[in-house]
């Protein structure tokens, strides 16, 4: 189903985003204005783009609007795709930038560690040393993780999704969020600590509040 990655590109990018059979032809045709080819690109990538938006926003309606925006932008920008990275990586970056822009417009400060958390201490990940009940026991159910992820403050969720799920490096995330790598490392660590807390808590939000139309 997949082809060998082109040698000129960063192999790391293709590791998680290998080119899809027929994708290159569809890109070329869509760049020339072929509507059917663009529809094919939509069908190949809609799931991944929508899932990314949903994870970053935790809101179905906003995620659909962002998916729509991402593909409209794709249509307009497709001519500038040069194949220097995997197409899906390029599309992901475009989507992430749109979501970040959307969140900034909503007034969310993505950089400040304090403002991404809604409290001055009560909600902050607490030191976990001293608690002798490590209940994760070497495994975490991915549905439980999705639920916990949806309950994270937006700034934590953003860095966690970009790094641990999407595979972006700290320097890439720092560039996207316009902050230091020290900041993203710290934010990621706090996100993981908070997730640990949530996963150990019996009161996680129900699955339906994460992916209402879930195909899980």
């Amino acid at each position, binding site marked *: 189903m997949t082809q060998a990655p082109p040698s000129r590109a960063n192999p790391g990018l293709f590791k998680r985003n290998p080119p899809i059979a027929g994708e290159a032809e569809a890109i070329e045709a869509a760049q020339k204005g072929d509507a059917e080819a663009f529809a094919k690109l939509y069908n190949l990538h809609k799931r991944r783009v*929508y899932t990314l938006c949903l994870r970053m926003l935790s809101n179905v309606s906003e995620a659909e609007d962002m998916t729509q925006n991402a593909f409209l932008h794709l249509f307009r920008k497709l001519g500038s795709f040069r194949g220097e990275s995997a197409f899906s990586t390029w599309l992901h970056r475009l989507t992430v930038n749109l979501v970040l822009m959307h969140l900034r417009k909503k007034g969310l400060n993505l950089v400040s560690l304090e403002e991404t958390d809604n409290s001055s201490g009560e909600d902050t990940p607490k030191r976990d040393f001293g608690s002798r009940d490590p209940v994760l026991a070497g495994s975490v159910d991915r549905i439980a993780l999705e639920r916990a992820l949806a309950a994270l403050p937006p700034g934590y969720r953003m860095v966690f999704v970009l790094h641990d799920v999407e595979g972006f490096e700290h320097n890439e995330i720092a560039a996207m969020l316009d902050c230091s790598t020290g900041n993203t490392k710290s934010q990621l660590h706090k996100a993981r600590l908070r997730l*640990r807390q949530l996963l150990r808590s019996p009161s996680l939000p129900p699955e339906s509040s994460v992916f209402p139309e879930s195909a899980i």
Partner: protein
Amino acid sequence: MTVPRSIDFEHLKPEEFEHILPDLFATGDGKVSQDPRLQNFLAANPDCAALVKDLETIAETARSLFEPVVDPSDRVWQNIQAKLEEDSALASIDDDYIDPDAPID
């Protein structure tokens, strides 16, 4: 922020460990539990070892979330198509536009 060279891993205290943990995870392959410098410390501090194990498990499970699970509703594509058609119609109006003040050949 990187792990300071001055850290004495043989006499590491839990609070120092907590401070450098984000960098320990960010360097290497993120397998802090297998870092040879930390083996004595983790063996002597089971709560820290449990924390590390849990954070590694969370990061590992997160990688499995990369595969998408949800389709957007059909409405998304319908809206995209409508918008593209609207743009295309506007473009063709632009193409057909005749400047009323232009001289007639």
